[in-house]
């Protein structure tokens, strides 16, 4: 479903702020894979998702979604294949527009925007049913401006918008990190439910190792712009947080050793 081949990206090349964010990411996702991604700050997790989404062009490599090479497509054209939920609850929705208008925009992802009415009565009924799944009472507030919702509600709505039109690939960029624990659990539960129901292929970045183990069928760890650990199926389900911590220490320990060798 997704194929990343040798993705490289350097920000601010040739300046003092040069940052080699991705140094060769290879990843193949099969249909129905639900991958959780962990890694320290600056490991390249979000950068990888942004590369797939086309926020900026990559320096090197190929991105193939469902057999289509999208490496050179602009962000808005790739949106056809992708559902995205961001870390910041403000990013995924249009605050000055109503809940139903936001949903209507999302349901037309990948379609040309014509002079037909932006939303119709049949859609409204459908959105009501969909909003019920979130269990936040939003189904009775279709014409409320999204800016009046809480962060958790906006994030749940963004999740719904990302999956309203079945995406080839769902990209979740720490979408529960900015929420309080209770709301985060609720949004995560809704995420699981929707992914299972629609049999979606998904990538979820998280800082929470427990979540990374508990969700999905595959787990990858990133470090310094590359994937250093990739585990799936039976092996993944036997993982413990301590295993991941050990793995983390191992990587950063190596790095430490390298630094020492350099000094010597």
């Amino acid at each position, binding site marked *: 479903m997704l194929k990343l081949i040798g993705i490289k990206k350097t920000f601010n090349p040739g300046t003092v702020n040069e940052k080699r964010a991705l140094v060769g990411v290879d990843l193949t996702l099969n249909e129905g894979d639900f991958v959780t991604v962990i890694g320290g700050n600056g490991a390249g997790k979000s950068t990888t998702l942004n590369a797939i989404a086309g926020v900026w062009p990559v320096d090197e490599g190929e991105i193939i979604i469902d057999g289509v090479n999208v490496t050179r497509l602009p*962000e808005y054209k790739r*949106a056809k294949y992708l559902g995205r939920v961001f870390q910041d609850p403000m990013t995924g929705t249009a605050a000055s527009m109503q809940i139903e208008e936001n949903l209507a925009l999302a349901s037309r992802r990948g379609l040309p925007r014509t002079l*037909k009415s932006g939303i119709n009565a049949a859609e409204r009924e459908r959105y009501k049913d969909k909003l019920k799944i979130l269990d936040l009472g939003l189904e009775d507030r279709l014409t409320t401006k999204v800016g009046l919702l809480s962060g958790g509600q906006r994030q749940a709505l963004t999740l719904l918008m990302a999956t309203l039109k079945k995406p080839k690939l769902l990209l979740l960029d720490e979408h529960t990190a900015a929420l309080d624990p209770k709301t985060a659990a609720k949004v995560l539960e809704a995420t699981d439910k929707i992914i299972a129901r629609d049999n979606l292929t998904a990538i979820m970045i998280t800082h929470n190792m427990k979540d990374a183990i508990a969700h999905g069928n595959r787990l990858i760890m990133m470090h310094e712009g590359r994937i250093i650990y990739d585990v799936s199926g039976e092996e993944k389900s036997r993982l413990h947080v301590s295993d991941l911590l050990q793995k983390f220490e191992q990587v950063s320990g190596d790095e430490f050793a390298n630094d020492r060798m350099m000094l010597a």
Partner: protein
Amino acid sequence: MNIGSLINALPGACAQGLIWGIMAIGVYITYKILDLADLTVDGTMCTGGAVCVMMMLSGHSLPVSLICAFLVGMLAGLVTGVLHTAMGIPAILAGILTQLGLYSINLRIMLGKANQAINVNNYPLIVSLRNIRGVPIYKNAIFVVLIFVVVIIAILYWFFGTELGCAIRATGSNPNMSRAQGINTDLNKILGLMLSNGLVALASALLAQYQGFVDVNMGRGAIVIGLAAVIIGQVLFGKFARNFAFKLAAVALGAIIYYLVLQFVLWLGLNANDLKLLSATVVAIFLAIPYLKKKYFTKVKKGGSGNA
């Protein structure tokens, strides 16, 4: 100071205010919906009039001249839009560049003269300051412009409810989200700028007919008048105007109030040369109020009782 002369001036101020209301609705599209400050309008506020007057002087019909004014305005918006999106020039600067270029173009359209007159007695003008009093209602300038305003609001109300209109609104509200939902934000910004400048040019064409001439400087400071109308409308009617059509109507009303106040301060004896300074001051104050309110007048709640 004779109260009669003030009252005499009011219908004219209303008509002029309504014409500027159309212009302000154009500004509303860029400033409020697209969240762009577009200074192109200072140029298009002359271009529309120039195109319309020169075409009518050379024998074209009124509808054709008005439509051409609208189209040329859209073209100016297209230039600003391309400079901004495809060339990466900040929106304000892109607008200033187009506006500056338009000054020369406006002079070219007007065959090198700084102004061109058109006489209502010899040409079938749709509005004129001569048709304010003592004419049948269908000829009355206020009535005619009012029809324009109502039709424009109705069309915009429909348009911004369509898929395309919603995409433009989403682009202004949250460009990141829009791209994630497959909306070509660059294209939508261009479309919004074109629509806005088309309306401004149409207002310009009406204003030139109303005053009986087009002047190369008639658009100077137009953006400030447009913003003033938008802000006055929002401050006075914002609480009642929840519906989009009412919001646009509030902008038009804001423009009328602006002109009525203007007429009033002139009547009080203000030097007409000081008007622009007054307008700039008023708009600056109204733009600053929300910021200052937030900074100095936000009430900080006293600590919760639970921690005492």
